[in-house]
């Protein structure tokens, strides 16, 4: 079953933003998902004319719902996500600003425009973000998912496995134990790790399987590689993306672009040519183990 029943792609009228259409159309076609195109245009045109202008192949038109307005600011995009029950947003990191860059507010990153940033920070659904150096390479072959033990990363892996099953892709999973690994991740989970051959193989597997409690073995077969790396997280992921010719990077994140691990994301967005699927975590269900102070 497709993990995305409806996909939304916002276009600001620029050629840069329009680069996301090819990928969005391909995904929609492969997944049988309805594609909502938000086309910012000063003049509303008949749908067929506008789709032809946007170079959406005619065979995809039955799956497309076109929306036109003079502009689609971030609030309009997020409202459209809710209104159309979209499960995925596909957009470029920058739009028309990339073609005529205005003065940036101090401190803002140049590689993600303010609309994209607002959408990825505010979107309740995953966002497929095309980096500035995006190179279209369809069909996709494999997804790389960095895991850390955090709920967001688990969510990204679950989504990637769903996508891989729907699109017949491979999933590579990597955990990079960075030198500054914090309280999360395998490094933290590996307290009293004992000898290398006793714990780590199973633990690495458990690291993956805990993210996929609702997936059976058959669905997990798409995971063809699980790697444990150590070193600089960004550099290691970049190496894996390049070495394995990764089509899509699926990452869990906290939803704040300028904080914490978003530094790794920024580092990668500057350098990679594949799209990035940004997934925020779902809240954990209620859980309580009544031991220790719980029973005192």
């Amino acid at each position, binding site marked *: 079953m497709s993990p995305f029943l409806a996909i939304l792609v916002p276009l600001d009228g620029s050629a840069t933003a329009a680069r996301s259409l090819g990928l969005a159309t391909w995904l929609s076609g492969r997944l049988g998902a309805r594609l909502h195109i938000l086309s910012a245009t000063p003049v509303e045109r008949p749908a067929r004319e506008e789709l032809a202008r946007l170079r959406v192949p005619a065979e995809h038109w039955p799956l497309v719902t076109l929306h036109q307005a003079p502009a689609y600011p971030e609030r309009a995009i997020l409202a459209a996500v809710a209104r159309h029950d979209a499960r995925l947003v596909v957009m470029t990191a920058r739009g028309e600003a990339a073609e005529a860059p205005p003065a940036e507010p101090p401190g803002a990153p140049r590689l993600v425009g303010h609309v994209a940033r607002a959408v990825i920070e505010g979107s309740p659904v995953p966002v497929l973000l095309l980096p500035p150096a995006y190179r279209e390479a369809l069909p996709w072959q494999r997804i790389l998912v960095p895991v850390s033990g955090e709920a967001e990363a688990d969510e990204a892996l679950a989504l990637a496995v769903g996508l891989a099953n729907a699109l017949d892709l491979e999933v590579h999973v990597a955990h990079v134990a960075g030198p500054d690994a914090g309280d999360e991740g395998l*490094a933290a*989970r590996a*307290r009293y790790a004992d000898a290398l051959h006793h*714990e780590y*193989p199973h*633990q690495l597997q458990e690291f993956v399987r805990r993210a996929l409690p609702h997936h*059976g073995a058959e669905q997990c077969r798409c995971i063809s590689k699980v790697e444990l790396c150590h070193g600089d997280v960004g550099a290691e992921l970049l190496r894996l993306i390049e070495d394995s010719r990764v089509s899509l990077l699926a990452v869990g994140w906290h939803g704040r672009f300028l904080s914490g691990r978003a530094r790794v994301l920024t580092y990668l967005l500057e350098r990679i040519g594949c799209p990035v699927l940004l997934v925020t975590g779902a809240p954990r269900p209620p859980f309580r*183990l009544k031991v220790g102070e719980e*029973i005192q």
Partner: protein
Amino acid sequence: VLFDLDGVVTQTARLHAAAWAELFDGLLRRRAGERGEPVQPFDPQADYRAHVDGKPRHEGVRAFLGSRGIEVPEGDPGDRPGVMTVHGLGARKDALFQRRLRREGVAVFASTVALVRSLRARGVKTAVVSSSRNGREVLRAAGIEDLFDARVDGLDAEALGLRGKPHPDPFLRAAGLLGVPPGRAVVVEDAVAGVEAGRRGGFGLVVGVDRADHRDALAAHGADVVVADLGELDIAGLDARLQARRDTLTAWRVEQEGLDPAREHDMESLFAIANGYLGVRGAPDTPLAGSQGDLFVAGVYDRKHPDRPYSELEFMDVGREDPYAELVSAPFPFRLRLTVDGLPLDLAGTRWRDHRRVLDLRHGILHGEALYEIEGDRRVTVRSRRCASLDDLHLLLQEITVCLDNFSGTLEADFSLDDPELAAHHPHLVPRPADTADPGGEVHRFTTGGSGIEVCLAARTTLAGSGRDAVRWRVPAAIGEACTFRRYVAVYTSRDAADPHQAALAGLRALPWDQFETALAAHAARWAAIWERADIRVAGSPATEQALRFNAYHLVSAADRDPRVSVGARALTGRAYEGHVFWDVEVFKFPFYLHTAPEVARDLLRYRHHTLDGARRRARELGCRGACYAWESTVTGDDVTPRTIRLKTTGTEIPIFTGTQQVHVTAGVAHAVWRYWEATADHVFLRDVGAEILAETARFWASRCARGPRGYHIRGVVGPDEYHHSVDDNAYTNWMARWNLERAVEAVAWLRRGSPAAWSALAERIGLAPDEPRAWAEVARELHCPGPNGRGIIEQFAGFFDLEAYPLPREERFRAPISRLFDWERINRLQLIKQADVLMLLHLFPDLFPRAVVAANYGYYEPRTDHGSSLSPGIHAAVAARLGLRAEAERYWRESLWLDLSNTMGNSALGVHAACMGATWQALVFGFLGVRFTDAGPVPDPAAAGRLPAKWRAVALALTWRGRPCPVAVAREAAP
């Protein structure tokens, strides 16, 4: 004490039922007339109990109309009485009730009022809790407005947004008003929804008052005690029941509420059930797709499978071709698929509301409970219990009770054990044809691919009252009726029976259904007998008692009486360590068994005797004589430790030194043999089993020690601290080896003296020359055993003091960076140790050196230890406690005690840490209590009372010594 109002304090149930009937009957008549159908009026008994009793009125409207398939709009709370909305009808019912209340008045139950007055006279706080918006009015009408300290009624619930019963909100609110935690409060209720609210709220005691002949329903929904009238209870009885219930609620059980799928594998380990012969992880009866509900059978190993799930995608062992290399997992034997009216009830979907697992430690039974809400506000409760019988080790028992709480429907239950992904989940197993002649039963036969062991699971299931067996059921289920299914599963392997298939079928045939409760009781009786010897009471700390019992539960569950098997590192609860047997058994777990179940301890040593040939082969492989036990062994005693592992990503090979160098395990086995003999005076064992182990291990050491210019040395070993390999004269190893040699000399002399025939037979069997023990004595005498230097410190191994200092950062203690395991050569050059090594020696031999030396070594090694093993904190706690370092001892002990329950290591998903549990027990008994054994029995250290952790008032346990359990008690005060 929290009292429900209607039906417990006041006799208003009749008024309510009449008001509901008046409301609904008019509506039902109109509807029937419109449709030309016969009228089915509201039943003031059955419908009242099932749908409206105890609930807020709008919920009652919804539930009853839903049960008749009638939908009305919600409306809003301002709807006028009689408007055809949920709220309008609710308001109408209220008006009808009030009219009756004014007209007919309300009577009270005198016995209840008397109990309340009596409670208040004793200073016990009371509250009245009602779903009714008329609560205050009813109290006023009954003349008992001031009877209670607090009251919560429907108006409060509305104002505070409290959910109605069976949600516990109103009772929790009342407890909050009284300032009493739920665990210390009693709920008294007459409605099924009310007792369920009490149970869900975690109240200390739930009393059901059976006014309507529904005693079973009250009990089934959570009443701990059911009475016909509160006159049957007095304050002393209530208090005794509350205390007993609290005891059971807390320290005798481990409970998990809710469900976090990401933590399911952790929970499966904690809630595993086992009886030593087999173990089953605690997956739900309706498993998630990713559940790992493995069944393990002790001794069933197979060749390492190259592409199983959970395989080492990153790591590859090299050279592991042993046919008994890893413990085999078999399919989950409690699998169930449930649907009601075609809708699946499982924990993967969105229909479950409440879920809990309760491990009853006292009886060794795992309880499960799930509440589902399906379309149309229909509720289904599923309760289960299961156990791995201690009375019949081949038997698993399971009971599932399904109750359609507020509707009738069709229940389908599929008990087939077919695993839809067998090959992926259990790749060691090759299915074989099985006898399917019995249509009511089910048989699954497998053979392991490499070792050729046959495993057979046979099952029968019945529905209580049906008089038949079936695998798949489709039955009508009436509202409120409990449908109880029972299943027997028999497990046999070709290691137990020539024809396991027939043995399993015969086992099942021997079990009539009327013996199900008897079988459960026999299992519980075994546990009761075990707790007589294994329980530890800690006055002042129920949480500690709970954790100690949890640990004891898993240690007891882990050990079989079969001398062909021993206890794996994660027992029968997980796949980590592949079921391998390490030094953990004799050095960490053994004392627990020795002093709580010496017969189990003996059988663990018989495993070492049974695998002596494997140990002899290993000694020969190492160029030595005698027997050297494998660092990692399974059923043959051959060493299954990999020699290297290869990282797939980089191709890097990392050598594993433990298999060839960690030879101290051999002395650990000998140590356990001697301790067993000391503790039991089991001379027959020493004569027939122990002496041979001691002789063969001494022979190994004599050949392993190398003569140098100033005595003997043991070179090229790994000690307990596995960060350093190829070291010479590891203090722990050498002292243990000397002890092994000396005890072997003693044992052989004892044998020659007391049993010349046995001595001759042994000497002939193992080719022992009469003067060989003299050679052992000489090696022991001249073996270099590092002693304390000028500062009192024993050098861990030759050259340790010269290694590069490594100031261990605080954040790396208990949390070694992953690079530590990859940078093994660098670590080998640092003064950084993984776990207690010299301290291990000082723990095992508390009298070897004076206290000052123990203190000096603790002070030196403790800061250099990163605790890269779960075995380390317990030993540090033991040594620190003996030194009187109370804060440190407590800190380490807590770390060890709650290691699995708090998932400190983050890897309890892979199985519980059985050896850590043993170390925790030792730290308490030999550390905090400082127990020593004399001929008269165990004697705690006179200073022990001063070492007890904070909040403990007293500790009491029994230690078995020379055939009898000896009570040991240490109290902070004169009497707790």
